[in-house]
């Protein structure tokens, strides 16, 4: 079936989606034509991403019908089949990339996911890299790329399997204008090569949307209008899409909206508010900010224009004292910035890039907290909070939790917090990033008022051209350097450009040429190859559709392993940690009790009473302290922990003994630690028994015992040395705790960082994904197992007396179970903190207390017994002690081995069941 003949690539009928109370999509019906470049336009938070997520199959459909490429996307088997024809690039720069993997490794992973052979991957990746100019950087980690390059790489990864439908969610947000232009040129070239491919793009940049074939204008979960850009402009009688869009909005959304008007800046004289001289910041060999100079006058609005990663944020951090500069100086109000200078911070308000207020507090609580932290007197504080709530239009949400507010309102709150102490200067890092045009204009009105009416100096960074245009003066930044500086109109005039964007692109091209010339390369950007057709070997589609593929398991496993190998710190901990702990435990954990401190209160002080004490002296188990003089001393020295045993020999001991009057000796034990006290008691009884036996012998009496003799035969560990029981237990403990902790972060980390979307969009099953996740950690855990056993045998001289095979089989199954436990927690948890915390708290109780290491499992009852039975430690403890110390073989241990296998399987299956293949 040739899909391109369908006239409609996506069809939505009555689609509604809500998150709690918030409505993301409100009964949307839409038919999207095939083979075209489709734009979804509208501000943030109107449901664009939700819609794209549903079409891509990564979000669960709540209500309505969605057909993609002729099939029902709500049907899991269709979704799996169609996913090899759909590509999805989620929102957020490089969000679907793995930052520690190299460019090539990233692309290679996606190729493997789609079951491509080695030659095919090589050919496709070379082709894609050639047409995106990424070839020279194959080995660079993705995390170290600029925003534009990240998006190009993301696109390569999406295109690797020749999709019929390419879905791009805000692919150019935060990318510099040159890279943005190159990105769209690239898409255009690809469409020439593959005319049947449909491209679905969400964007907040209206100027980009002008070049698309067909548009869907959205607001508040509804479709406002559809049609070509021309049709939209004509229907609203406007000349630009941006204005057309604002006109399409319902009236209440635009009420009170007006284009912010700026009065020209008049210098009030005096020293500059901010002055930077040769400011430089290096991180290792990377220069983030390179000799930046600028002066900002009091009351001026100064803008930093540049892409993500160009050094704007770093410069601002140096100005606030968060980062000490490597070179150069920064002056605030004529004084050098110092990290610990608390007083100068009272004159500055700061707003960081990401929303950094406490989302678990309400709007009012946030304001009150900051008012107090800036030491506003209480009456003034409450007046100021009320004033800001009104002035910033926040009264209605005053008692709402911050986390449930839309971005635009949060940004207003951030600004309110930044000005709560009426600072003379504001430093704002990308304050309007992700805020819709109407809200952005409202935000600017506030800024203009602060600057012109209150004389506040404003230093802000942005990647929006129209915002930069509003600044009194601005500075264009790229690659850590300032390219040009001056009033925006002047910069445009200097380059004879038609607008600020063109001027910026001009400066960027110059910089790129200079850089290339410095490296002795031709300027690559302009002369990108036109994308020559390459003969790429095709994978049979049958391979992609197969139900279970080792190739995909391997793809996931390889990726996870490479990531682990790149994180030297984590790897080091994983391998060396258990060894170190084992050494410490084997050396330190011991249940042997000896050198018990004792003292005697000898009320008789006769030769026979001294003889009695002599029995305790010289024994390895006791250690004599200075004698006691009376009961108060006896009490005190027991209470302060100096003595564990106090012997009390009564006056008349010798006399009574001689007359056969059965004198009574008391031994007082410190039973605060019962285990130790019990042991001490048996030692005392033994010494006393020996003493009596000798006494009877001396008196010529027969032994007093009954004819019953008790013989104790200690099995498995004749001399009761705890090392033979403890070292196998240590192996059990460490193989539970460390591998589960490592694995516990595997899935939840991807959830938090967003790369889990790759799994949602890939034609992979949950089993494949989880197996791939578990495999590298099983390998690490097996290495730990091998080294721990070696340590036990070589260093601690605890030999394996039983069957090696049973120990190894049990160890492998145990490691599968402990990593499976981590996997289960990871699938269940929603944050890394929760996963770590749960791994620490939940695993340690059964592993230490219920496993049989300290207390025999046969003695457990109730909840403890149950916990012991469903946790693998109990069974491996039996296998470990059994094979090391009890000389057992599989014949006796098979039930434990079978239980381990069962638990490993159950943990894995439950993880598979709990894992979602779609976002909620």
């Amino acid at each position, binding site marked *: 079936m040739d899909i391109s003949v369908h006239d409609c690539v996506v069809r939505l009928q009555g689609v509604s989606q809500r998150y709690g109370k918030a409505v993301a999509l409100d009964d949307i019906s839409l038919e999207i034509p095939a083979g075209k470049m489709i734009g979804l336009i509208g501000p943030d938070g109107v449901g664009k991403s939700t819609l794209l997520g549903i079409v891509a199959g990564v979000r669960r459909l709540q209500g309505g019908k969605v057909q993609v490429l002729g099939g029902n996307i709500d049907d899991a088997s269709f979704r799996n089949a169609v996913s090899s024809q759909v590509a999805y690039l989620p929102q957020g720069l490089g969000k679907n990339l793995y930052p520690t993997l190299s460019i090539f490794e990233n692309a290679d992973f996606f190729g493997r996911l789609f079951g491509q052979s080695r030659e095919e991957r090589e050919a496709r990746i070379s082709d894609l890299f050639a047409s995106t100019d990424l070839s020279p950087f194959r080995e660079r980690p993705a995390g170290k790329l600029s925003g534009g390059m990240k998006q190009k790489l993301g696109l390569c990864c999406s295109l690797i399997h020749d999709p019929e439908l390419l879905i791009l969610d805000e692919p150019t947000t935060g990318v510099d204008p040159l890279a943005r232009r190159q990105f769209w040129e690239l898409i255009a070239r690809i469409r020439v090569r593959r005319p049947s491919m449909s491209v679905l793009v969400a964007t907040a940049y209206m100027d980009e949307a002008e070049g698309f074939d067909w548009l869907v204008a959205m607001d508040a979960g509804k479709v406002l209008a559809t049609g070509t850009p021309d049709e939209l402009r004509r229907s609203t009688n406007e000349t630009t899409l941006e204005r057309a869009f604002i006109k399409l909005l319902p009236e209440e959304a635009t009420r009170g909206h007006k284009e912010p008007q700026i009065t020209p800046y008049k210098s009030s004289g005096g020293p500059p508010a901010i002055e930077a001289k040769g400011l430089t910041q290096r991180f290792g060999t990377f220069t983030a900010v390179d000799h930046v100079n600028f002066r900002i006058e009091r009351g001026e609005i100064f803008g930093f224009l540049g892409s993500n990663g160009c050094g704007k944020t770093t410069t601002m*951090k140096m100005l606030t004292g*968060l*980062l000490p500069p490597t070179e150069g100086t920064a002056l605030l109000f004529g004084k050098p910035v110092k990290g610990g200078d*608390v*007083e100068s911070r009272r004159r500055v308000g700061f707003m960081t890039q990401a929303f*950094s207020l*406490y989302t*678990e507090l309400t709007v009012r609580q946030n304001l009150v*907290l900051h008012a107090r932290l*800036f030491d506003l007197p209480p009456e003034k504080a409450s007046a100021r909070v009320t004033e800001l709530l009104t002035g910033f239009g926040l009264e209605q949400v005053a008692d709402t939790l911050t986390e449930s507010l839309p971005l635009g309102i949060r940004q207003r709150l951030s600004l309110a917090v930044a000005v709560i102490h009426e600072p003379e200067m504001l430093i704002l890092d990308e304050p309007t990033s992700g805020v819709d045009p109407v809200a952005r204009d409202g935000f600017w009105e506030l800024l203009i008022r602060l600057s012109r009416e209150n004389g506040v100096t404003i230093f802000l960074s942005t990647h929006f051209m129209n915002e930069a245009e509003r600044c009194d003066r601005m500075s264009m930044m790229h690659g850590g350097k300032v390219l040009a500086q001056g009033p925006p109109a002047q910069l445009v005039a200097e380059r004879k450009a038609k607008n600020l964007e063109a001027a910026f692109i001009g400066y960027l091209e110059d910089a790129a040429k200079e850089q290339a010339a410095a490296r002795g390369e031709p300027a690559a950007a302009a002369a990108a190859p036109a994308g020559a057709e390459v003969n790429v070997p095709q994978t049979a589609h049958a391979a992609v559709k197969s139900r279970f593929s080792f190739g995909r398991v391997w793809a996931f496993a390889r990726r996870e392993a490479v990531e682990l190998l790149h994180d030297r*710190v*984590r790897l080091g*901990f994983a391998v060396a*940690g258990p060894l170190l*702990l084992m050494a410490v*435990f084997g050396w*330190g*954990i011991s*249940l*042997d*009790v000896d050198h018990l401190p004792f003292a005697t209160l000898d009320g008789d002080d006769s030769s026979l009473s001294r003889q009695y004490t002599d029995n305790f002296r010289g024994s390895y188990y006791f250690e004599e302290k200075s004698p006691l003089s009376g009961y108060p001393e006896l009490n005190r020295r027991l*209470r302060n*922990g100096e003595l564990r045993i106090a012997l009390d020999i009564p006056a008349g001991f010798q006399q009574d003994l001689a007359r056969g009057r*059965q004198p009574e000796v008391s*031994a*007082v*034990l*410190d*039973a*605060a630690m019962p*285990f130790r006290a019990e042991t001490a008691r048996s030692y005392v*009884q033994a010494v*006393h028994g020996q003493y009596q036996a000798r*006494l009877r012998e001396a008196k010529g009496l027969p032994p*007093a015992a*009954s*004819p019953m*003799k*008790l013989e*104790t035969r200690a*099995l498995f560990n*004749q001399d009761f040395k705890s090392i033979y029981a*403890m070292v196998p237990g240590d192996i059990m403990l460490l193989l539970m705790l460390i591998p589960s*902790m490592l694995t516990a*972060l595997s899935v939840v980390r991807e959830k938090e960082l967003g790369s889990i979307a790759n799994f949602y969009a890939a034609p992979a099953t949950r089993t494949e994904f989880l197996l791939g996740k578990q495999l590298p950690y099983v390998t690490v855990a097996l290495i730990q197992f091998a080294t721990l056993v070696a340590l036990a045998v070589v260093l601690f001289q605890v030999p394996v007396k039983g069957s090696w095979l049973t120990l190894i089989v049990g160890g492998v199954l145990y490691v599968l179970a402990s990593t499976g436990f981590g996997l289960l927690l990871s699938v269940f948890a929603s944050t890394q*903190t*929760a996963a*770590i*915390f749960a*791994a620490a708290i939940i695993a340690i109780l059964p592993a230490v207390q*219920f496993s*049989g290491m*300290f*207390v*025999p499992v046969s*003695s457990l009852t*109730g*909840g403890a*017994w149950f916990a012991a039975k469903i946790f693998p430690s109990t069974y491996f403890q039996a296998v470990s002690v059994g094979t090391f110390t009890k000389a057992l073989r599989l014949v006796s241990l098979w*039930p434990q081995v079978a239980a381990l296998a069962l638990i490993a399987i159950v943990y894995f299956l439950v993880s598979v069941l709990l894992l979602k293949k779609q976002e909620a």
Partner: protein
Amino acid sequence: MKTLKHIGQLGVKELLSLARDPVLLFLIAYCFSFSVYTPAKSAVMDVINASVAVVDEDDSEVSRNIRAALLPPLFLPAARIAFSDINRAMNAGQYTFIIDIPPRFQQDLQRGVTTTVEIIADATAMSQAGRGPEYIRNIMDHEVRPFWAGSRDPRNQDLVKLNIRARFNPNMQQSWFVAVNQIINNISVLAIFLCGAAVLREREHGTLEHLLVMPLRPAELMFAKIWANGIVVIAAVMLSLFLVVKGALGVPVAGSIPLFLLGLTIYLFSVTALGIMLATLVRSMPQFGLLAFPVFIVMSLLSGGQTPLESMPLALQKIMQVVPSTHFVSFSQAVLFRNADFSMVWPDLTKMFVIGCVYTVYTLSRFRKMLAAVQ
């Protein structure tokens, strides 16, 4: 003065955040209820519920009496197995002890002929195997006495009587000890992970930078976290001590509660400082987990709570002196069980405090460096 106010306000913020995290609250509740009660009730290193089997080759009145006398709480009801089952049962770890009563046992006793009973102990069950036979001997002696003619002969009386008294825990109940030890462990795990993870989360969410550009000192942030998390833990510990330990487990807490509170406060200061210090040493949450977890395991197993500190090699005992939990374990045992007064425990308190100060100073010196490192 301003500093104190800031610390107070930031701390209130911490409390508000915590109140809105139900998962964390649940884990705290779990830590101080189930995780204290269950091990104390059953996982104790003592001869409690020891599993025992009897190979009764005599099947006489006395051997039946012996079997019936092996009773909870010391022993689980004795199973009767055949001689040929001994090896299989021991290998499977089914019983910790097997008592083999020989044929003609009663007859031999009555005639005064020496007869040998064998106790087979699983010596890998370290905590029971050593002392169990002693208990079995006492029980058997008691049962055998009426059948042994010589028992009434005055010459067979003890020459010297031994009277053993256990102070501070007269019945040597392990559950007292285990409950308190579990509380100490949970204090450590909560303090380290709560505070450390909170610092990392603030760093990852950018709120830490946000606070550092305000007129606040890092020390204020740190002490705010310490007091706020500390007060939650103190409240949970007190509830646990009264409801779970005194109430449900029936442990008579001997010592002075105010003194214990003082020590607890000092310990929390030093152990939360440790958690924050660990958080400043790493770059990401996975690394924090991998660093903090071993530290916690070492604290939990080697501080003298699980096994006696004196049993460890001297060098290790010295090393453990720089870990605050070692002193807290010793302090808690002294106060809660031995009713020690301030004059007896001040060295422990001083050491914990000094250790906490060292951690704090080191952490503060790293605070800004840490922010610079997360580029």
